[in-house]
């Protein structure tokens, strides 16, 4: 829809361009910003013109630019995504929006939007990715995506902070994953997404969509079922919206967590 209060638009090309004037807001690829009225927004700063390389395989692992689109993520060669390539496809499939939006939607935009059902949040949290954030003072900070997203539509990002990239460790691209999701209609917005990842130390179970913020349960080598059940009992942020009731979401998350644990353990 038209954002009737917006009177300026500029394409960011360099970091200097990211300094926001009063009323300006960042515009990413998807673009959710145009799907709801944005009272108070008077200017748009387009991030998709920054020209960041969508992804780079490094010695430490994989770096995904915040402006990498879902389509570009899916185009990363399997060899570069390693064991996570199937997970990337599953998370992209979990998008409520069609390929027409995925073609444009970015990983950074999806994380900033911080919907519980954010499919790229599911992906990046499962990989235990670290977000690289450009701070307003010209500096940089790092924060795991699991902590960056603090609730439904809330993050730790301060005004003027911009997501630059996501760093994924090399080990995350070697580990084994299991994925489950559900929604109230076959291809609807996710009600619960669970990913289990088998690491050298044990199993990491991540919950998204069913909870207001990402939940990560780290399980050791022993007594995994019991630890998982106890950890899930302590979850205090089961999410409620038009896409599912919290009691059902909790039950689905438990069910999927157990299934995923079995799958990565076999």
């Amino acid at each position, binding site marked *: 829809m038209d954002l009737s*209060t917006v009177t300026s*638009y*500029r394409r960011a090309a360099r970091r200097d361009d990211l300094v926001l004037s009063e009323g300006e807001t960042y515009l990413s690829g998807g673009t959710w910003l*145009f799907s709801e009225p944005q009272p108070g927004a008077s200017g748009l700063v387009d991030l998709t013109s920054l020209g960041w390389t969508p992804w780079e395989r490094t010695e430490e692992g994989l770096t995904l630019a915040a402006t990498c689109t879902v389509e570009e993520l899916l185009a990363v060669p399997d060899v570069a995504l390693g064991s996570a390539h199937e997970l990337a496809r599953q998370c992209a499939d979990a998008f409520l*929006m*069609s390929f027409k939006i995925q073609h444009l939607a970015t990983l950074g935009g999806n994380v900033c939007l911080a919907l519980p059902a954010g499919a790229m949040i599911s992906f990046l949290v499962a990989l235990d990715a670290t977000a690289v954030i450009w701070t307003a003072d010209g500096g940089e900070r790092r924060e795991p995506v699991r902590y960056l997203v603090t609730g439904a539509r809330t993050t730790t990002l301060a005004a003027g902070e911009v997501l630059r990239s996501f760093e994924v460790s090399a080990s995350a691209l070697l580990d084994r994953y299991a994925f489950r999701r559900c929604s109230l209609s076959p*291809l609807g917005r996710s009600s619960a997404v669970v990913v289990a990842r088998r690491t050298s130390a044990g199993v990491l179970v991540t919950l998204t969509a069913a909870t207001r913020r990402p939940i990560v349960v780290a399980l050791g080598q022993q007594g995994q079922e019991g630890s998982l059940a106890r950890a899930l009992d302590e979850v205090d942020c089961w999410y409620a919206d038009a896409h599912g009731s919290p009691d059902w*979401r909790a039950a689905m998350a438990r069910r999927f967590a157990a299934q995923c644990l079995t799958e990565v353990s076999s």
Partner: protein
Amino acid sequence: MTRSSGGRVVVNGVSPDSDPAPGQCLRTYLRDHGCLEVKKGCDAGDCGACTVLVDGAPVHSCVFPAVRAAGREVTTVAGLGTPEGLHPVQRNFVEAAGFQCGFCTAGFVTTASALADEEGRVAAEGDGLARLFKGNFCRCTGYRSIRDALAGRSNVEEGGGFGTSLGAPAGRRVACGSERYTLDAPDDGVLHMALLQSPHAHARVVHLDVSAASALPGVHLVLTHRDVPDVLYSSARHESRLDDPDDMRMLDDVVRFRGQRVAAVVAESMAVAERAVELIEIGYDLLPAVHDPEQARSVDAPLLHPFLDPVRSRVSEPGRNVVAQSHGEVGDVAAGLAAAAVTVHGTWRTSRVNQAALETHGARGWLDEYGTLVIRSSTQIPFLVRKELAHVFGIREAEVRVLAARVGGGFGGKQEMLVEDIVGLAVLRLGRAVQLELTREQQFTLVPGRHPMRVAVELGADADGVLTAMKVDVLTDTGAYGNHAPGVMFHGCHESVALYRCANKRVDAEAVYTNNVPSGAFRGYGLGQVIFAIESALDDLARELGISAFDVRRRNVVVPGDDFVVNGPADTDLDFGSYGLDQCLDLVENALRADGRSVDEVPEGWMTGHGMAASMIATIPPRGHHSEATATMHPDGRVVLDVGSAEFGNGTATVHVQIAATELDVDPALIELRTADTAIAGYDTGAYGSTGSVVAGRAVADAARSLRQQLDALDGPILAPVSGRGHHQGSPRSVAFNVHGFRVAVDPGSGEVRILHSVQATDAGVVINPEQLRGQVEGGVAQGIGSSLYEEVGVRDGHVTTRSFRDYRFPQMGDVPETEVLFADTWDELGVRGAKSMSEAPYNPVAPALANAVRDAIGVRPRELPMSRDRVWRLLQGDRSSQGLWPPEARQGP
């Protein structure tokens, strides 16, 4: 400050003469530059109606910043092909009849064009097609015909007289985007209207200052309760204006629901109008509100309309918030229950459902050269709107002209006057063209949807399953205004109860005001909700008796010769013009029995079951429905057919051409149809109550026959136009029947209901157009499945929480399985050439048939719609008490 990245936007090979504005989406930029084929469905990236190609890639132009199109090539559906030179995908949509209203078609075609082979086909394995098209919504078809189009299958026939699958006359234009809908007209100097909506459920306006808003440059008019005619009326319209209560003013100093329009601003642009709305200073005194209809009719409840005169306003009991009520008994229900070998009882609830037509309500008004108020509106009822506008403004009907272009879906929602009144006032005040186009959010917050109902049913039967008593108690939540409240309540309790022959019947029904968004008309008009309860109870009865669900119907349904009885004297103008219910029961029973699907399709651990339900509907609404038609043969061989009925995806344009072509024995291509314009066509009550075929169609048949007689009597060539006229008054009325059957599998782990087999048999008399009839049935079934499994408008303390399609769970292609559609073989004495209506009815038996199948599978009776996965899962936990506790906002229905 706009820093362009260089380059002009190129649209279908041409560069528009101006650059996009910052904050403008590509959709409005394209429409501003004459690309009216780009539609607004949701304006939020969900529905895909606005899909265009940018450098060959399909995008939702409503969420695509127009500035990003600079230096790029944009292709709209009109750039792909023309009616004379169709793109292969467009040809496939025409030949498959892959649309009804056609408002979504441009988006489907552009999306498919990016995926299609050179024959225009899109192939995908498994659920691949559903995934590819999850960003394209269709409300009319149920998607089967769209899948056919994508597969390159043809469903239309050449020639196309009565009984053949003639394609819609507008087909090629729809597929190319050149068919014009309500607001598809150049924006030449049109002023735009924005609405201020109430933030409160019940409040009195005590302070109002519009000076700042009025002073904003570009603002032409601000309308508040001080500016409106002192006339009470209803947004609902019927042949008789006495059918609906006079309980609303155009703008009022008391607001009764959150979202109610409080003021309107007319300005040079939508942006200015929206800014001015923000500048209106308004103060409210809050009044106590009531949101639960049971509480609303209790002694201490706040009253919504305490000062209405019950007689003059036709509100049953304003002192108890009761708009309409019916209490009556035939026979002796207590004795019938006492004599029963078996009794069953239960209470069922239905949710608030939105029509979700892809075209939002909108109207554009102006004064013509004679000073006539002209309103071009998205309406099913142009003549009734004209009548009421004249009443509200105190002017003669001749001073008002209302017309409808092709309407982008209605489903009953456009049997309301929701925009025409305030647009008309602004036009009369300003003497300039004014337009109001509702947003998708407003479709949820101020457009009346389906009445939520609470229905209690008690049945008694003897040991053979013959009913000894039927007791039905209905409570409907009509919201803050009584539009359609009496009609929906009486109709809902009518054919649902009259379908069964039982000596002892009692029906108590009340329609109640609450401070919720008003309810209104929606396909089935109350029947679906009451039938859900009665047909579920009958299923319980069959189980108790140990006889089949089909047999319990066979033993109790009315047959020719029976009266139609609810809770009082039998109907006098309802008759068995034909009877195909017996066939429908057999057809569905055999189809379910012959269900050849192997058990392998059912995942391990899932529970399976089957269920059925029956329904009856009168072919025409009661108390009069009139239509006039004129057929004129011109010397050049063209036949001009004028008929007042509107085309909104119901297919009557096709049917009228077929009827006239057959009566006149001419090629359908020679017939030019002019519809839905009070200045051109003869009177038509409106396209509601499934009357397009049986009322308007009979008028068309009469007109064509009259023309034929005159032509046959002519000696020699036609030298001047010859006209025949026809008329039908909508009475006596016949009955039509539907029976639906499902086989389902339910995952006890998740509550997922998977439809394995869906079959509906319909008794529509002689089939006028098999492909269109199938499409109407499939579309009704799809909406039925939507209400049964997915759709739900959440309301919390009167605040609508479901404000977009994505939160409404609008059924997508992957949510709607194919339905086997079977036709009974009957010939109706009262219909048009043996045909009956069949448009609303297919919706009605779907929910109970599905609920009965779920009951069969899981052993627990669902009593609430939608049977969403979380609710079914809860049923399986044995947690029946909590059913309906979540989501809390949705549970404010009865």
